[in-house]
């Protein structure tokens, strides 16, 4: 197999793998930049995946056809944002411990999702959806030599994820809203004295996080599994948190980290078809993504600086 042929396989796999990770990591950034730890990303993704599938099934029944998974993505964003209130209200208003809360929400999410599926369909997992967001060859662009590696066998959601990374970067670093969001995460009291409503900003951060997390879960469900069960989302949310930290709480960093995870994963899978790598034992290839991550976190990207006040509830007037 030639090098180019290898790339034609590796790049689409990496993009597909990275897509939900990037979106969820962007969600994590909104929440943590505002000062609220979001371990609950995993649970929010579960809810998003369940919503995505249930909505798609329902809309397909109503006759919306190929449009149903796309509408389902929007519905999952709304439901994800609402579900994140389970984190926002206790964490921001009642000053609960955010990490413990996140863990609890993750447990709640799986139970709740399965319960709803049981009530609706009277069984433990949903049927497979008829219309999913499929991998496609982008017209015209997929005919360009070499560059076509980015446009063959690709889901449009991958492009959406990459575009979102730039949009979120712009929002967080170039708009007044972003400045306020970052300020309440770094030094909420200073922000408060400047007249910024810390509670409101943090609510927005967490709910945006919920919307992105819901979208990520739904994207995963309608592109990869095409049904929902208790094991649809297992660990992707945590991997997204790792990507967020790896990317130093920067949207473009998260984009890079997500793609890096994707490539490491793709390489571990395609590796045995490559000339040099096929001499490496398979177990080493399988641990490669995680080993590379540890290496990267340990030195290559330098220190990962979290927002100063992340995880600390803001109490007005307290020094």
């Amino acid at each position: 197999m030639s090098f180019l042929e290898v790339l034609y396989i590796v790049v689409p796999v990496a993009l597909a793998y990275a897509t939900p990770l990037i979106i969820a990591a962007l969600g994590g950034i909104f929440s943590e930049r505002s000062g609220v730890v979001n371990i609950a990303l995993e649970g929010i993704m579960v809810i998003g995946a369940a919503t995505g599938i249930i909505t798609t099934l329902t809309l397909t029944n109503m006759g919306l056809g190929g449009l149903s998974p796309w509408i389902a993505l929007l519905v999952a964003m709304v439901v994800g944002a609402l579900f994140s209130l389970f984190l926002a209200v206790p964490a921001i208003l009642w000053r609960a411990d955010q990490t413990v809360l996140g863990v609890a929400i993750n447990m709640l999410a799986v139970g709740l999702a399965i319960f709803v599926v049981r009530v609706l369909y009277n069984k433990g997992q949903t049927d497979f959806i008829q219309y999913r967001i499929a991998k496609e060859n982008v017209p015209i662009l997929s005919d360009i030599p070499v560059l076509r590696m980015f446009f063959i066998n690709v889901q449009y959601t991958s492009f959406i994820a990459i575009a979102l990374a730039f949009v979120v970067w712009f929002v967080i670093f170039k708009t007044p809203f972003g400045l306020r969001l970052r300020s309440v995460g770094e030094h909420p009291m200073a922000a408060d004295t400047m007249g910024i409503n810390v509670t409101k900003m943090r609510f927005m951060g967490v709910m945006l996080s919920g919307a992105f997390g819901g979208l990520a879960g739904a994207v995963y469900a309608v592109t990869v599994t095409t049904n929902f069960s208790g094991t649809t989302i297992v660990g992707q949310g945590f991997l997204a948190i790792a990507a967020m930290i790896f990317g130093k709480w920067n949207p473009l960093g998260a984009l890079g980290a997500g793609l890096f995870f994707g490539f490491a994963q793709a390489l571990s899978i395609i590796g045995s078809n490559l000339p040099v790598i096929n001499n490496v034992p398979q177990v080493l290839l399988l641990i490669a993504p995680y080993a590379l991550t540890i290496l990267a976190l340990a030195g290559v990207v330098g220190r990962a600086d979290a927002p100063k006040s992340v995880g600390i509830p803001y109490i007005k007037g307290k020094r």
Partner: protein
Amino acid sequence: MMNKKKTILSALAAGLTLSTVLAACGGDDNEGASNGEGGGEAGDFKVAMVTDTGGVDDKSFNQSAWEGLTKFGEDNNLTENEGFKYLQSSKQADYQPNLQQLARDNFNLIYGIGFLMAEDIQTVAEQFPDNNFAIVDMVVDAPNVASITFKEQEGSFLVGVIAGLSTESNKVGFIGGVESDLIKKFENGFKAGVMAVNPDATIDVKYAEDFNSAEKGTAIASGMYGAGSDIIYHAAGGTGVGVFTEAKNRKKNGEQVWVIGVDRDQYEEGLPEDVTLTSMVKRVDTATYEVSKQTMDGNFPGGEIIEFGLKDDGVGIAETSDNHVSDEILAKVDEYRQQLIDGELTAPATDAEFEEFMKSVK
């Protein structure tokens, strides 16, 4: 720690007290069975199962096991929840209490479905030495436990024959969940089946090292299809869902690719693009039905390993296979089935056996 010890002690005590009562029951049953002919004499025979976390409607082996018990119950005029019942486990920690509860409720035969329950069956079987237990897909060494296993290599051999004869690119793939003795049976049986009919074919084997990672499934399948395989056999549980997704996407874009399903007829998974070529079916229902019947007749195979193969209708190919597989190929499959049943041919289960097999082919 103290608490845990106490619970175990009290469970033991309860077990001991009950065992005297149960011993009497067991004796009665055996007598009743030896007197009465056939399965009509159900008497007070009670059978139950504990599902693993997949639940009783997992479209897989839990559901299949329960179908076997339901049929057994109906055939013997047992009422649900009294004569036959199931307890659902929502997490791994539920296995042991569920098994204990059924043992205390005097069920004569209690199934643990799935290899994850092996340790718990072992523990509970020691606590309740007078109850009979059975485990599916795993071997537990205890005098009151029957271990039900399947000759997956035989069913896999048959789907291998189909793959070997159906492939147009002369390249097929196998995707396993976690590399283990169990999944090796699928792999080696499949490889042998392909090689038996098409010695020139290339077989690409890969393990995801995960049973629940659909994205790894899509990724590996994408790699295999990309490198030229046109049929992939998966023995990878939830990871296999991703294999189906990838195949459907490719077929939608005009590529002619297929998936071979596992454990049950996975025709439905292949829709709407219809990518399921055939499935290797494991008849857990046959197994639970048979073992229940034997036990009721007083022949509980305690301490034994019972292997269900082609001969016992324990494994096979899906009924929907004729949708995409030609009659010619199916006739060939029947030939091999007969050879396997007659013992003229042995499907290899381990790597060593596969090498032996290859020597005999060449």
